[in-house]
Structures are given as C-alpha cells and as structure tokens.
C-alpha cells in the first residue's frame, strides 16, 4: 500500500479518498485561467511583471507565489514531410479522429507544434518535502495531499532543495515556504480546487485519484488510436521514484521538455545509506581522534 494511503489512514474515520489532479496537456489552450484563479483564491501576492521572451510564458517556474504555471513550448515538428513516417495530425485528421480527440488545439498545421501544460505541485506519495521538514509544518491531509501549515513553518527552507520538482520556495519578505495546497480549504467544503473549476477545457481535472487514473488510461488509449503516438502519462504509476503523484499529467513529449524531471526520485529513498555513511564517518572521526591523541608520544 502506498505511503500516502498509510498516512491518510491515521485520520481514522475522517480519512477521505485520495484527491488529485489529472492535467491533460493535450486539452490546454494556454489561457492561464488556472494561474489567475489560483492567485485570486489563495490570495497569493503579485510577482514578476516581466517579458521573458519564452513564448507566451511570462510567469516563470513554480515558486512561492506561483502555484500553477502554464508552460509554452514551440516546436518545429515535420508534418507530412515523410510519407513513411506517420505524422501526427494529417493521418489522424484523415480518419476524422483528431478533431474528436481535441488535438487541433495545439497543432498549427505549418510544422509548428505548440505545447501548453499547466504545472502544479505533484502531491507525491513519497513526498521528500514532507519527510525533510524539521518542524512538521508540512503534513499529509486526510485527502492524501501535502500541505504547509503557515502557522508552523519557521522558514528553514529545507524542503526547497529537497523537492525533486523544484516546486517549493521561500516567499520574500515573509520568510516562510509556500506551495499549492490543492485548495485544502475548498476540499474540506466539498468544492473542487480553484484552478480545476476555472479551466475552460477540462485540461485540469480534479477528482479521486483512482478514478482519475482510469480516466487517464482511457484518454491515452484514445489518443494513441488517433495517431498521437507521442502521448504518455507522467507520474501515473506507484512504482516510479516518488511512489506516484497525486497530481499527474498527460504529456506529448519527454517530461524534461516541459521542465519536469524524467525520473524523479524522492531523496529520502536513500536516507538509510545517508545515515549509514554519516554514522560511519562519526565513528571514523572518533577512531581517528583517539588514535592521534592516545597514540601520540609524550
């Protein structure tokens, strides 16, 4: 049984089915409604107002003041240049499947492929941030999500470099660490998170994780049937390096293209080896000092 479920069990009768996001990037139109809704609902301070030159992304990566981030990737992909290679949309369109599958949203048709994806905290099963937090400010909720208690966090910043996705960050002028709560307050009132509610294309789908995973499998199969061989699920399995995520994704390219690590591993999976080396070094230090002091000539 995944760790997240074990931790949720400590809530006893208050435990709830594990909640999550299925972000289907093939449906994302880059409107950034999720970013706005998140900022509004969670009262996140305004941050950078800048021109990055990185396509339509003037938000920048996830940090203390950005809990949803829409990535824009422009790619030159040969379309129909090689008759032997089954190109994405030309073949599929001929079969009348592409439109049904909603693939036209990102394909311009002139060889430019425009990928858009709304990134968010993954609410890992094996959450490194939660493990390394020295104060217990980070905790597992009854929904299996990972949340920072703002009244406990003392701003030590340990979770920031521990996260394999670079999600958490310290807020300037505040000192504490902030990240997506999967709208814990809304969940407790049986409402869906602000980003999912605001998403006009259902690219962000909220629900019970088990149900979302089944839905994602069907979507993946449908995209493959429509000729979209690139489609893949990311963080949808329990046997990856973080034990699966509460927030998982359907991507059209390698994860690193979206700024996501291809094989993230929770650092605490190596904790046994780390403590063993630390203990051995402490003993070696003691032995070395003893040899030097007690063995010295008078």
């Amino acid at each position: 049984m995944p760790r997240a479920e074990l931790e949720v069990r400590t809530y006893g009768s208050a435990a709830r089915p594990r909640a999550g996001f299925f972000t289907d990037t093939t449906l994302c139109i880059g409107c950034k409604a999720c970013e706005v809704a998140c900022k509004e609902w969670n009262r996140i301070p305004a941050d950078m107002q800048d021109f990055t030159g990185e396509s339509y992304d003037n938000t920048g990566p996830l940090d203390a003041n950005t809990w949803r981030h829409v990535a824009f990737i422009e790619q030159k992909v040969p379309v129909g240049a090689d008759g032997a290679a089954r190109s994405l949309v030309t073949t599929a369109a001929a079969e009348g499947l592409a439109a049904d599958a909603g693939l036209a949203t990102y394909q311009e048709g002139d060889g430019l492929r425009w990928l858009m994806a709304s990134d968010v905290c993954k609410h890992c099963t094996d959450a490194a941030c939660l493990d390394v937090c020295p104060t217990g400010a980070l905790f597992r909720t009854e929904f299996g999500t990972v949340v920072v208690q703002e009244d406990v966090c003392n701003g030590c910043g340990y979770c920031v470099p521990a996260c394999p996705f670079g999600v958490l960050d310290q807020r300037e002028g505040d000192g504490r660490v902030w990240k997506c709560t999967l709208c814990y307050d809304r969940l407790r009132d049986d409402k869906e998170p602000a980003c999912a509610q605001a998403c006009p294309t259902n690219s962000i789908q909220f629900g019970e994780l088990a149900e979302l995973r089944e839905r994602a499998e069907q979507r993946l199969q449908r995209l493959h049937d429509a000729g979209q061989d690139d489609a893949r699920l990311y963080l949808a399995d329990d046997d990856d390096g973080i034990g699966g995520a509460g927030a998982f994704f359907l991507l059209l390219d390698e994860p690193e293209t979206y700024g996501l690590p291809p094989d993230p591993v929770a650092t605490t999976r190596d904790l046994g080896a780390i403590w063993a080396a630390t203990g051995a070094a402490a003993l070696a230090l003691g032995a070395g000092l003893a040899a030097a002091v007690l063995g010295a000539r008078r």
Partner: protein
Amino acid sequence: MSAATGRSGAERRRDEAAMVPDAEPRSYYGHPVVKPPVWKPEIPFYLFTGGLAGASAALALLAEARGDDALARRAWANAFAGVSASPVLLIADLGRPSRFFNMLRLVKVTSPMNVGSWLLAGSGLTTALAVADACTGVVPAPAGAIAKRASAALGLPLATYTAALLANTAIPAWHEARGILPFVFASSAAASAGAAALLTTPPDAAVPARRIAVGGAVAGMVLFEVMEKRLGDLGEPYGEGAAGRLKKAATALTASGAAMVAGLGGRRAGAVAGGALVLAGALCERWSVFRAGFQSASDPRHTVGPQRARVRQGARGGAARAVARTSPEDPERKTVFEPRARG
C-alpha cells in the same frame, strides 16, 4: 595527455561522450528543474562551527583521558565557542527566527535538520557543563563527568550530520556524494579542532593537536578529490565558478597550513600561523561545498542528464509511460517509453 596515451582526438571525444550520458539534455528554456537552496551565508559558517565544536569536544575528552589537562581545557573552550556560535547562525538563517523553537516540536529521523537540532541542543547543554567543569570544577563530580562523555559522544555525529543534511536533497552534487561527503566533513572537522587547539595551546602540550590538524587536513584534501572524481560530470560544480575558486583556496590554505604545522608546529608562532591557515582552509572547504550545491541545482543538465540516461539504459523505468493499460491490475502495465524517430 592524448600524446601520452596515444589516443586520437576522435577517440577521446567518444570517451567523453560516453562519460556524458546525454550531452545536451533538454530543458524548459534552460530553467533549473530543482530549486537551489534559500540558505544564506550563515549556513556554511555553521557547517564550519558545528564541525569544529563536535570534533573539539571529542578531542577534549580524549586529551583528558590521556592526562593532557592543558590541551583538554582549551579544546573544551573551543567546543563551547563552536556550540555557542552555531545556534545563533542557524536561527539567523531562518525565515522566521522567532519560531526557531518549532525545530524541537517533534523528533523526526527522516529530517537530518531535525536530528541535527536535537544533536546541537544536547551538545550545547552538555558542552556548557563540560567547559564549566573543566575550567572551574564547580560542577558536582558525577554530573561533570557525564556531561563530558555526552558532549564528546554527541560531538561526533554533530560533526558529520551536516553532510547528511546536504546529501538528503535533490541537488545532484550533494545527493550523489552521499557516501563520501560525511567523511570529507569528518576530516575537516578534525583538522579544525586540531588547528583551533593549536592557536591557544603551548606547543609542548599540543602534540596530539598537531597530529590531528595535519592528519585531518591531509585526509580532507584527499577525500575531497576522491569525491569530485567519483561524481564524474556531476562533480563539475566543485571545479567551476565560485565553488571552484573556493576549493582552490581551501586546498592552498589547508596544504600550506598543514605543512607549517608539521614543520614549525613545535614553535608557538609556527603553530599559530599553521593552525590559522588550516582553519581558514576548512572554512573555505565548507563554503566550496555549499556554493557547489547552488551551481549544481541551477544547471538542468545535472538534474535531467543522469535521469534521462538511466531511463534510456533501462536501469529504471522513469516516470513516463506511453502504453495504456486496460486494467489497473494488469501486471504488464509498466513499459519503458521508446521515443518515436523523428523526421
């Protein structure tokens, strides 16, 4: 190099290509995947003071056991100075210093920072008693002896846990050094304790301190080199930029200091100058490791490259899967994604 080994440039390039798992891993506009720490300069200073304090306490107890009370008293004083400065540095680094006490809300072995907070708290209390006992003798007999033993016992992990603190992150230059970094820190802690004792101890009472300063310095320099080599490409940050310059400074200071202690340590001036150089070297070493973590985190190649390589080589399945599974119970559901050839 190539002339000596008789290899052609092309061969060398191939070898290098083999070493670099993915020469140009892809990234999102070059943005880092993992975040660099938000830790301020207090932290590398603390890495230094914590190591100095921990090793000094152990040195003090050992010197006492040997009957070197003059050395023991000074080492206790150094340990006390170290454990006094450490919490000040740590609290100053917090985003909310007034909440420092939250560190001791619970005991949590998955958090080296939490374990370290307990170690430091225990070390601070016992070292204060130990130094009071060693210098004034006012502490009642059993309490003083117990405090000294506890201070030394806590001091050893206090000197090495900071390596666990850094290794238990997603930063490649730290995490992938997890097997050896504690030994690097143990060595420089020993060097610091020996060198600090040399600053105040008369030379005829400082033979053990000299041995520790020189031995710790040499071991630290060797282990740092081994660590950098073992890291391969991920060790690049230790040789580049600020971290690289700090490492060069650390090596120069430590080597010259150790040589001076070994050669001229029998004289007060030589011991003081050599000890100061070794201390400065140990501080630069901690700073180099600290800065290397920032550089490592800031380069997405270091994060993505090894991950992509191990997926490509089939060592791990990775987090992406292109094959749909019909039922969640299907045992064959996990399949390594094979990118379709383009163009």
